[in-house]
């Protein structure tokens, strides 16, 4: 098994075989990332393609100080957000009326759900909300950072997160994936 260092060095030299290895290693995981941000598979493929082109174009700037996977992931996320900003018209109408007062309830348990189902649920979210959810839950950004990245206010980020979580919970409830503790025990 060839290590990341050798693959990266090969890619920096423009070696086709190394580029192919890098793609084969990271593309499946990154498609999963792209799918979370995009509303369908076609968009996700476009983002994946654009993201990998950026990876190969800028790989010579990668310094082996941090995680290479993290570096690629960040490029994919940025590409996805840029893609959505550029290509998708924001529409929050169907979620705007949801109150931003979401709070986790202690007696609630979420049943395991397959990623494919969760993807479908995520993709039913309006793009802006999906971005906030992704950045907050998966990338671990704080609201201030999310606000900077998405060009929104911090309070908007918070309220969108709250609304998005409520939206997701409603969707999970529809699929009977949310159980109260009493239901779960009983």
């Amino acid at each position, binding site marked *: 098994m060839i290590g990341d260092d050798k693959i990266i060095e090969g890619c920096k030299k423009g070696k086709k075989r190394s580029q192919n290895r890098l793609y084969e290693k990271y593309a499946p995981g990154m498609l999963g990332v792209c799918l979370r941000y995009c509303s369908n598979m076609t968009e996700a493929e476009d983002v994946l*393609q654009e993201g990998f082109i950026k990876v190969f174009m800028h790989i010579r700037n990668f*310094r082996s100080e941090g995680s290479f996977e993290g570096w690629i992931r960040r490029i994919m996320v940025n590409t996805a957000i840029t893609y959505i900003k550029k290509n998708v018209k924001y529409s929050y109408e169907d979620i705007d009326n949801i109150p931003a007062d979401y709070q986790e309830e202690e007696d609630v*348990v979420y049943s395991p759900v397959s*990623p494919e189902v969760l993807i479908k649920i995520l993709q039913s979210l309006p793009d802006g909300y999906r971005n906030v959810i992704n950045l907050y*839950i998966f990338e671990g950004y704080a609201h201030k950072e999310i606000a900077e990245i998405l060009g929104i206010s911090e309070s908007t980020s918070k309220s969108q997160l709250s609304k998005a979580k409520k939206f997701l919970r409603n969707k*999970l409830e529809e699929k009977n994936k949310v*159980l109260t503790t009493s239901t*779960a025990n009983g």
Partner: protein
Amino acid sequence: MNQGYKNIDDLFRNEFKDFELDPPEHVWENVKNSIPGSGTNNSFYRFRYGGIIGLSSILILAGLFSFMDFSKTTDVNTNAVTLNSAIEVTNSQVQEPETGASDRENVAIVDFTNDVLESSEEVQTQTVETNKNILEIENSISGNSDTENNLITKNTSPANDLNATVSSFIPDTDSESENEDNLLAMADGTEHMLVTSLPGTHESNVKSSEFNENQSDGSVENDMNPSEPSAPEFKSDYGKKGNIMLGLSFTPEITFFPSDNKLTNQSYSVDGSVIYKFSGYLLQSGVGVQFASDDGNYKVDYQKFLGTYEDVYNVTFDTTASGVVPVYHTQTVEVYDSISRVTLTPTKNKYTYLQIPILFGYGEDYKRISWFVKGGPSVAILINEGQPSVNFDSGNNRVLNYENELPARINTNWSFVFSAGVGYKLGNHISITLEPTMRFYMKSAYERNVVTTKHPYSLGIRTGLLFGF
């Protein structure tokens, strides 16, 4: 098995932890086709193709040399010189032969002849073999000059001219050979073999004979061997037929970009060349390695570190004896200046090219000095690119992006090279040359749409050694 998640965040994080999907084939195809320089960008392939082109050029030149068949003439001339030198010594030692000399003198002369013939062994083994046969005959009849002279007279072999020259000074004796006929037969056979196998030898030995005649104060007459056909007149081939030279050169070069005065770079190249010269005309090819570099900057985009704060990301409530107590879950958040800053750090990209020129020209040689002019196409293939990593200490700051501001170079570039130079002969086979060179590039060395410069040119001084054959 997981029984469930306490909150929606954990549900999503864990379920997507190892989530992967195989992308369709066309995505990679599109990525592959969009990466600049992929495929043929591989330095191994570039080097391989360059090597093939270089090798082909050399083989073509080698084929031309073989086809011209000039090497035979050169060899013959060399032989003639060798033989003449040796024979000159022989003649000087036998200039005044005494009438009725003893057998001992004959043996001495024949022995010396042996030495002379051995000296030609380096050049023509077959000639030596022939002469050795004859000398064996001579040795066997040592003291019998009549037999020897007859033998030589009957032999029209050019190889025997040398023997004729020497034996003409051997005084007659009365002794007879017992195997004269056999010896003659052997000599005839030897002559045949020599004439058929070494056609070029005739001319050289005729020349040797003529030379000896001139050097021996008329003691040897031209019609000494009446049976010998008239010898063709010897004409020098020097400078008429082609010859081959190998060169090793070093060229410092400076490249100018007329429409962008910010870009000027220096390069150095080392090359080996093969030059075929015929009637003053030159045909040159070879392989060179050029080392070039570009000075430029990395543009570093970063955000300044301002400090940290503890962010409360969750609050839970513990029920204690004293009541419900809130528990604040915090995480340290680093704060950076929202304004991005840009700094430039110097860097130097290094490039290695394989150069293959095919040049045509004309030149003239004088006793020590020669001059020449040359011109022709040359291809440069990028075989290695060295880009140092950025030298920037970010400290606690957050680096957003690095960008090497230097434009990327193209992989293959054609140019036309013109040069005029002079050579100075250091010895018979070695010359030193000084050759101002101008190179006119077909297109910019940089990627299109990055730098608008067109048709850069370079000036250089090529210095080197030429080895002639």
